[in-house]
């Protein structure tokens, strides 16, 4: 555990972005998430850690209502984004997902050109008035995802032709292009090699300036490296939530301590 250096990164923002109150999730008869309460801050990286099957990905998918696409999934409790309940009947899940972007475990570029991949969101949401503005959004998003230098000469080539790490950064650029307020990342580095992982982690740290980032990860080192806040899930419960440095150096719950020292998981 020597490489688990916890960077002394103060949480410099205390604005509440997302608040979850007593959230329960059921898959059919399975009780996947049990009464979770969590408060996610703006312009902060929050990491969800925990053993496989503990419900961290399920909870993440509740935050932009991606679970709506699964028939048997039922969510109860309140999730507030900027003090508005996202499960309220008057909220359009499609609009919500434009505000709460998502990056998935496996890079999933569309079978289109790099340019069209990034321009996909802005086009369907009508974020640009003309081609020049769209070009600008694409360039800005690719720059923000640290992919511009590698991709600028091949914007018309298919996104599926990039390497795995580049594909994942393309997916991040694609999510950034719609101008979200929150970026959800579901194990974004689990399919990447160490170099690509380092690039994406660096990127996450930069994205913190503009967005609230929530990242699910299996790697405790990664959570320690990129996040300011950490939540530990176990068997569908939120066991402990606090500053990353506190969770990793001075866990309050014995289960958290067991997990980060490698005894459960």
């Amino acid at each position: 555990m020597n490489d688990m250096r916890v960077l002394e990164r103060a949480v410099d923002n205390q604005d509440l972005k997302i608040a979850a109150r007593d959230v329960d999730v059921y898959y059919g008869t399975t009780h996947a998430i049990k009464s979770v309460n969590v408060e996610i801050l703006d312009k902060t990286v929050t990491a969800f850690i925990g053993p496989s099957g503990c419900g961290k990905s399920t909870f993440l998918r509740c935050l932009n209502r991606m679970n709506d696409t699964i028939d048997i999934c039922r969510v109860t409790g309140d999730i507030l984004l900027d003090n508005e309940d996202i499960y309220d009947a008057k909220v359009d899940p499609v609009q919500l997902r434009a505000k709460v972007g998502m990056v998935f475990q496996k890079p999933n570029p569309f079978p289109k050109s790099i340019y069209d991949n990034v321009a996909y969101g802005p086009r369907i949401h009508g974020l640009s008035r003309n081609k020049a503005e769209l070009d600008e959004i694409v360039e800005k998003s690719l720059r923000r995802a640290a992919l511009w230098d590698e991709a600028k000469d091949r914007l018309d080539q298919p996104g599926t032709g990039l390497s795995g790490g580049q594909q994942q950064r393309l997916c991040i650029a694609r999510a950034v292009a719609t101008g979200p307020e929150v970026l959800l990342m579901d194990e974004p580095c689990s399919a990447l090699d160490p170099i690509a992982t380092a690039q994406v982690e660096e990127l996450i740290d930069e994205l913190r300036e503009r967005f609230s980032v929530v990242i699910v990860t299996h790697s405790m080192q990664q959570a320690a490296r990129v996040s300011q806040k950490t939540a530990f899930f176990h068997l569908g419960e939120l066991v402990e939530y606090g500053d990353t440095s506190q969770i990793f150096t001075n866990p309050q719950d014995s289960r958290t301590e067991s997990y980060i020292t490698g005894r459960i998981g």
Partner: protein
Amino acid sequence: MPLLWIVIAVLVLGTIGYVLGRRRAMASAEGDARSLHSLPNYYGLNVLLFAVVPALLVLSVWLLVQPVVIQRQVVNMIPDTAAQSAGELSLVMSDVRRVADGLDRAVELGALSREDARTIRTEFTNVRDRLASIGVALGDEVSSDVLRAAQRYRVLKTTGTIAMDAVVLLLAAIGLGYAYARTHKELRARNVVERAVLSLLILASTIAILTTVGIVLSMIIETRDFFRLYPWQQFFFGTQWIPSFEGGSELGLIPLLWGTIYITFIALVVSVPLGLFSAVYLAEYASSRLRSVAKPMIEILAGIPTIVYGLFALITVGPMLRDYFAQPLGLGTSSASVATAGIVMGIMLIPFVSSLSDDIINAVPQSLRDGSYGLGATKSETVKQVILPAALPGIVGAVLLATSRGIGETMIVVLGAGAAARLSLNPFEAMTTVTVKIVGQLTGDTDFSSPEALVAFALGLTLFAITLGLNVLALFIVRKYREEYE
């Protein structure tokens, strides 16, 4: 010995070999199956294969070769003059065979003794009458040469069959003995059986391929005969189809090809949107319960015989189109029309398009859908901009397969569009297709040396070339698609 018996005898030998081989293997392992290289069954099968396969192979080759050899021997006995007077050597030979069969039958019924059958001569006996009395009718007086040839034929055939029986049974016994002697616990019997299975599979696929080649070759030969009688320029570029069995026909391909293309085009205009949209609905929107009911219901359409579709075209769609569209618009008074056949054929093709497209849309990875929904796209935006482009090559393949199915369709066209070859743009006019004309030229009394009958083969070959081309194109596109996602 009749053929069936010898086959049964070989199979019985094989079964005995199976039991013996299994027992010997077990004995060599001292009753412990675990110390065998293969499972005990494999040793039995190994002996069975060695007993049966070479024997049956020799049997089938012998059956093919023996008649040729005997014929060659007997032909020498027929003088050239006899052959010339009968017109064809093959006619004389069939006479010889008929007389030989008659003699066989006479011996069987006791009308002739074996000795008599071998020695009777036309000079002393009226063979024709003798055979007629036991029910074997011969067209002509039996000449002395033919009778002698027939007797020789009988002798050769009897000897040949006895030799064959002996060789086959001997071979089966040798195979059995050899494999039995080799059976030992170290023998890799399952590898032998594996190779036998492999050859069986190869044999099956070879037969399938050779059949295709045979069909194409027979078409090519007949087509060549047609082009000897009729100039190919007039066939491929002729715009008139006026066959007349008195000669002087005009056999132009263009009107038939036009009818085929026109009807298939209308069928695709009907089936592609309907099929594709229902596939999108089933794959993306419908609940799994609805899907499990609706998909088989659509696929039932593919199970309806085309003649039933034809009836539907004839009594429902045709009159309806005539009464509500063609007559009010002043476009014709025929209930048989291109539009009728095209629409009904389109309905028939819906399941081809929808079922394949549905599978292909389902094969688009879920991660692409998640990616699109995660960016705030709606379902229809996702379908239009992500799923259909990703599935496009497969959908094109499905449409091409449906097209080649439509091009080959006959019954719906006969009943829906009539049988009049015509070049016209009016969709309410009766027209016909290549397949209908193939049927038309070959039904009834046909003389296979006239171009009017032989043209059917040229039409068939043209059609085959077109559908083959479409299928190859479809396969090529589908394969390219598969490489992308697996």
